[in-house]
């Protein structure tokens, strides 16, 4: 182990490990890559059966509406949940190599991002199949996706950094992610359900806001809410910078916590 692995070596190891991890994940289950798609499909099916069929809140575009919400929220949920475990899972390596600990949440988020790009591709094929016609506004989608990526990285780094210090928070994080699913308007339209005064509060939840923006662009063919995207991006970037400093400061503390 090099003492303080230099930046070039850090990224070389990072991308090599990313490739290896993605490959090995496939060999661990019978269906491999198919699970990346199957998971959101199962969720959307369940929600469609409950809300579209049992509760008869069926509108023409409910399926598309659900897909936009669920596919994007499950990216957030999966990445943050995996990140919160990322340091604890790598105790062996942390005890063996003097590597910057930011390596682990970064790797987890990147791994999930690659998978999500596959899921997004499948989602757009499905939308086309469902008769949604691409609009010029879709060109702004990469910016919405980038904003969500920054949000995920920020949330993932916070969770990864805090769980080794207070392991109990792991339970709180998984509960919050579940609650967040109900509170992000995945299977309801906030404009129909909430009174005006509560709508602003609802949109303070960054995931609810992003899902609204995804739907605005994909279903309605409108431009996203630039102010909201900028606010989410900048606050996420600020959190990321703070967490980089925290990780640098606590680097050897995490190694010590791994043996406690």
């Amino acid at each position, binding site marked *: 182990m090099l003492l303080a692995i230099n930046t070039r070596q850090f990224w070389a190891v990072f991308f090599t490990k990313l490739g290896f991890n993605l490959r*090995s994940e496939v060999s661990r289950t019978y269906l491999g890559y198919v699970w990346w798609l199957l998971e959101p499909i199962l969720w959307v099916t369940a929600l469609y059966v409950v809300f579209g069929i049992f509760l008869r809140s069926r509108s023409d575009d409910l399926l598309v509406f659900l897909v936009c919400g669920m596919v994007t929220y499950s990216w957030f949920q999966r990445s943050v949940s995996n990140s919160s475990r990322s340091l604890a899972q790598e105790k062996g390596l942390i005890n063996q190599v003097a590597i910057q600990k930011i390596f682990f949440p970064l790797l987890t988020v990147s791994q999930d991002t690659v998978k999500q790009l596959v899921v997004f591709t499948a989602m757009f094929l499905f939308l086309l199949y469902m008769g949604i016609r691409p609009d010029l506004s879709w060109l702004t989608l990469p910016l919405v996706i980038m904003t969500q990526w920054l949000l995920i990285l920020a949330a993932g780094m916070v969770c990864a950094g805090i769980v080794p210090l207070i392991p109990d928070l792991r339970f709180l994080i998984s509960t919050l992610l579940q609650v967040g699913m109900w509170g992000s308007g995945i299977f309801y339209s906030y404009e129909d359900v909430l009174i005006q005064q509560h709508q602003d509060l609802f949109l303070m939840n960054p995931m609810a806001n992003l899902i609204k923006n995804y739907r605005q662009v994909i279903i309605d063919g409108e431009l996203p809410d630039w102010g909201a995207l900028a606010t989410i991006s900048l606050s996420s970037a600020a959190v990321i910078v703070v967490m980089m400093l925290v990780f640098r400061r606590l680097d050897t503390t995490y190694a010590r916590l791994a043996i406690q």
Partner: protein
Amino acid sequence: MTVPETLLELEHVGFTYSTGIGFYGGKRVEALRDISFSVRPGETLGLIGRNGCGKSTLLRVITGIFRPDRGRLVRHCDRISLLALNVGFDPNLTGSDNLVISCMFLGASKKEALTMHDEIVEFAELEDYIAQPLKTYSSGMKARLGFSVGLKMQADLLLVDEVLGVGDASFRTKAKHAMKARISSDQAVILVSHNDVAIRSLCDRVIWLENGEVRDQGDTDRVMADYLTYVQTVKGVGRPQNQDQIALKRKV
């Protein structure tokens, strides 16, 4: 390139950790209290002491995995490699992938790691298993892979933590010979072992740790003799034994 006078200097190094967190608390353990010594280029330093005396913690402080709470630690070299049994392997990756990653953690580029791949696999005698996930490996196979990676990679200072006894009898002999060759080729080594024969035959100098402190250091034969007398008078685990004696006992 000028050769530095010392590769590593430790002055009054101390390290404390707690055995638990939360309201139920943990016990604070002073793993290292007051450690001072230095390592010169090319020398082989033995590190002895009973189980729990702080040997492995000290190696982790030297590699920079832990930061000492007290004292001063100065490294005059870049590549310090830790060769230990529980190497940081990923159980889901194949032996090959783990080999490449380990080499890269030791400073190799991916290309260099791939170039050395076959040689390392051959030394580890894992040709038939290298494409399998590491979780299917026996502990001996994992140890052989870790040992071979550490042995083939260049390092300014090599830290060896109880790995001389890895593998079966034939691999052990090969590993010992390879380690001897490496040690005699001007490699600076810190060797942790409970095998007194190995310590006597390989080390120029010995440091005896007891309870997180340096109890004695100096000439191998003198310190070893004192240490052996000491462990026979106190009860406790971790008495130094020859690996072959341990193996014999297991069989019985």
